[in-house]
């Protein structure tokens, strides 16, 4: 550690000023839009926003989908992560690489794939028609189901990564020991695996939840204007109605959500370090 | 300046935030002297060394080296070498390039010859092309030493030079440092928390405590005549009691007489140490450590025996604390 504070400050200032001027300032002004009225400061914009049934629908849909995606990815994530850590080291590394691979691929490309699969003439409809289960293609695209599937595919890797690293830190013999003591798999999960990987679950869950909450591409491509989520609603309000007050309210909701999730993560991380 | 104060610290005060690490320290180091800064962790010995190196800026006071005031000079302009406790070799450079590093910056001629001569001093000419990571701890330390020596510094500072080495290497390195010092006549200051290292290696020991000098003197002076309870404790006196004059009396374990005397104590621990047997006694005077030749009668744990702390084998301390 060097002593000279002035040099230290001079080195961080460009980055700090850059981030402050380009991020905090404009975003701060945007957030203040909702509080400013012609007569002064007020919270009425929030009341008006939530009074609209459409906005309510979008708000609760976003919450619902994000929660659902986090919950389902936790279930699949536990199964997949447990399978991965039970592999021998070399194939474990390879499998981990395969699971994280999708994160490198453009979300546009990943979401686009579902158009091919879920579209009216898509893969799924073809199979269903060929099997005689349905007569005419059903609508899957532009439904909540499509958005849900897209989000799940987008964010599941984050959950698996978090759970795999949590499981790798688990005492090696915990599960066999519980099995020897006569616990069945359900008991092993509730009494051993879940408590020992809770941190990984919270981290993964937070990442998936905030990711889904603030997703744009997936609801835009797979949900369209029929299944709006907060970000697509924001885009629509601005481009269609030039409604910056609504945009400001949505921005506040999204930032508060992401920020509290981030704080939670940070608290967990420091709690782990001090232990 | 004379040879008596080749390095001279005057009224040196250093602080980290609000904690004073070194408090108004005065110290003179002779030319060609091998001096040890000794003390427990937090006593300010490392801080003092870093102030000589120029890695820390004093809050007040001055540092003079060879008659020049270097207090405000950066490390690069002080002509001081420093062998780090971690060796701090540059991992991306070969052994040769590590040693050549400072010479290259100075654009010295005959670089190859000088580097190889430096490696020769520490017996590592065959390792010139290796990477630091391929070397053992002892070899890394010698590279670090060579890297400093080729710069011909006026003062060579060494931070805990023996602490990371095993017992055999420690002896080897000790001999090596003494040889280098003899051959080059360089002034060396090393920092250690280990009194035996200081006693074995240094011409003069500076014992530090709470940012100030507790006692300075030759190994014999400090070992035989500590001035305070702290110094005595550091020099291996295990039994320290107050005397009538407000000072103290100190006995080494070997100075305690067992089997007779005015005091009584219960044996709490006993262990065999080759030619001597070591005992721990619990008595009205406190815990007493004693060791006696194995030829004397043997006591068992739990036994209560008489013992004596003879006045004539005690060392008088000016201060008890």
């Amino acid at each position, binding site marked *: 550690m060097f002593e000279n504070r002035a040099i230290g400050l001079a080195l961080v200032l460009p980055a700090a000023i850059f*981030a402050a001027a380009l991020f905090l300032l404009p975003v701060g002004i945007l957030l203040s839009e909702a509080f400013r009225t012609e007569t002064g400061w007020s919270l009425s914009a929030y009341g008006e926003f939530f009074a609209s049934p459409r906005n309510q629908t979008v708000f609760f849909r976003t919450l619902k989908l994000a929660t659902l995606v986090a919950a389902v990815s936790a279930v699949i994530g536990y*199964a997949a992560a447990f399978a991965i850590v039970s592999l021998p080291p070399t194939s474990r590394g390879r499998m981990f690489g395969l699971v994280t691979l999708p994160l490198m691929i453009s979300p*546009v490309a990943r979401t686009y794939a579902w158009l*091919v699969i879920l579209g009216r003439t898509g893969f799924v409809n073809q199979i269903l028609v060929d099997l005689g289960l349905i007569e005419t293609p059903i609508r899957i695209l532009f439904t909540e189901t499509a958005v849900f599937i897209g989000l799940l595919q987008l964010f599941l890797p984050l959950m*698996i990564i978090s759970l795999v690293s949590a499981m790798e830190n688990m005492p090696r013999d915990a599960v066999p020991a519980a099995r020897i003591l006569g616990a069945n798999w359900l008991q092993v999960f509730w009494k051993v695996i879940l408590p020992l990987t809770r941190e990984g679950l919270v981290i993964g869950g937070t990442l998936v939840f905030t990711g889904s909450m603030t997703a744009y591409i997936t609801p835009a491509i797979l949900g369209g204007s029929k299944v709006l989520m907060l970000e697509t609603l924001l885009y629509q309000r601005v481009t269609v109605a030039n409604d910056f007050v609504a945009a400001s309210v949505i921005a506040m909701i999204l930032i508060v959500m992401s920020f509290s999730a981030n704080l939670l993560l940070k608290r967990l991380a420091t709690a782990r370090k001090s232990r | 300046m004379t040879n008596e104060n080749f390095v001279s610290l005057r009224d040196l005060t250093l602080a980290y935030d609000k904690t004073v690490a070194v408090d108004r320290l005065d110290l003179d180091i002779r030319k060609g002297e091998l001096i040890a800064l000794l003390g427990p962790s937090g006593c300010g010995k490392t801080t003092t060394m870093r102030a000589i190196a120029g890695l820390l800026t004093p809050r007040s006071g001055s540092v003079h080296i060879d008659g020049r005031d270097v207090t405000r000079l950066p490390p690069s302009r002080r002509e001081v070498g420093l062998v780090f406790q971690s060796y701090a070799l540059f991992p*991306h450079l070969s052994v040769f390039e590590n040693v050549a590093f400072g010479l290259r910056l100075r654009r010295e001629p005959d670089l190859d010859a000088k580097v190889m001569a430096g490696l020769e001093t520490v017996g590592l000419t065959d390792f010139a092309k290796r990477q630091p990571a391929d070397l053992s701890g002892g070899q890394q330390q010698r590279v670090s030493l060579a890297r400093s020596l080729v710069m011909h510094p006026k003062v060579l500072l060494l931070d805990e030079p023996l602490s990371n080495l095993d017992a055999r290497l420690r002896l080897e390195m000790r001999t090596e440092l003494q040889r280098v010092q003899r051959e080059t006549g360089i002034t060396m200051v090393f920092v250690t928390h280990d009194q035996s290292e200081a006693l074995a290696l240094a011409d003069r020991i500076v014992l530090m405590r709470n940012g100030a000098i507790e006692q300075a003197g030759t190994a014999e002076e400090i070992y035989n005549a500590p001035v305070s309870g702290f110094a005595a404790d550091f020099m291996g006196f295990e039994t320290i009691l107050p005397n009538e004059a407000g000072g103290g009396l100190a006995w080494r374990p070997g100075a305690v007489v067992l089997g007779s005397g005015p005091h009584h104590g219960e044996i709490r621990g006993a262990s065999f140490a080759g030619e001597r047997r070591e005992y721990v006694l619990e008595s009205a005077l406190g815990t007493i450590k004693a060791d006696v030749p194995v030829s004397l009668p043997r006591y068992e744990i739990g036994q209560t025996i008489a013992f004596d702390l003879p006045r004539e084998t005690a060392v008088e301390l000016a201060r008890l604390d």
Partner: protein
Amino acid sequence: MNSRLSTWIILGLTLTFLIGPFLIIIAAALSAGNNLAFPPQGLSLKWFIKVFEVESFRASFGVSMFLAIFGTLAALVLGIPAAYAMTRFKVPGAETVKLIVSSPIIVPGIIVGLALLQYFVIPLGVGIGLALFLAHTALILPYAVRVVSASMENLRVDMEEAALMLGCTRFGAFRRIVLPNIRGGVLAAFILGFVTSFNQVPVSLFLSGPGLRTLPIDMIAYMEINYDPSVAALSALLAFMSIGIVFAAERFIGLSRYV
């Protein structure tokens, strides 16, 4: 129950879900037909060739490349000194600075894009291109600072001090000792920044003008009008590009150590 078998069944299903769609895209892109479909109608490479002939793709690819390369470089120019200061100096208000620098990760991109458009581009008359560049730089900055800080923390401070003792200035010690030893971290930060910027959509949504769009935005716009497999072909190409870069990075510098 055979646990080995169930392990592979679970992993098979998971990978099918995660990677299957991507394989379907490749298959659909190889179609000889004119409509997006799976299974493909005949095999051909024509859509892969078509991609290179679409003028807007070529332009937006250039825009995205420029942003990813120079945005990341700019983020590193700002981020390396900041990371150095935060790992080596006692910076007054270090926590606040950290929070400010990492804020672009916390604030959803779409909001940043909108805020920049509304309160930076429009009132100050700044060009969309410059705003895009600055937005991407700011977006990558937190990654750059984080990854570079991590490798600086692993580098012992006493090496720099040793260099100072041997005659280096502080900047010289940074250049000769710190930089060569954090090369891997800097490269990792560059790759992470590049991929993040290249795939980024929300920040760029509001920051596009006529003839100035990033590639992902352009792809979304194209697929809203056309239903041919060229976007599939382009998606496949981009995916291969990203995967190739990341794999090469893993092989040569061990990317996963830094991220």
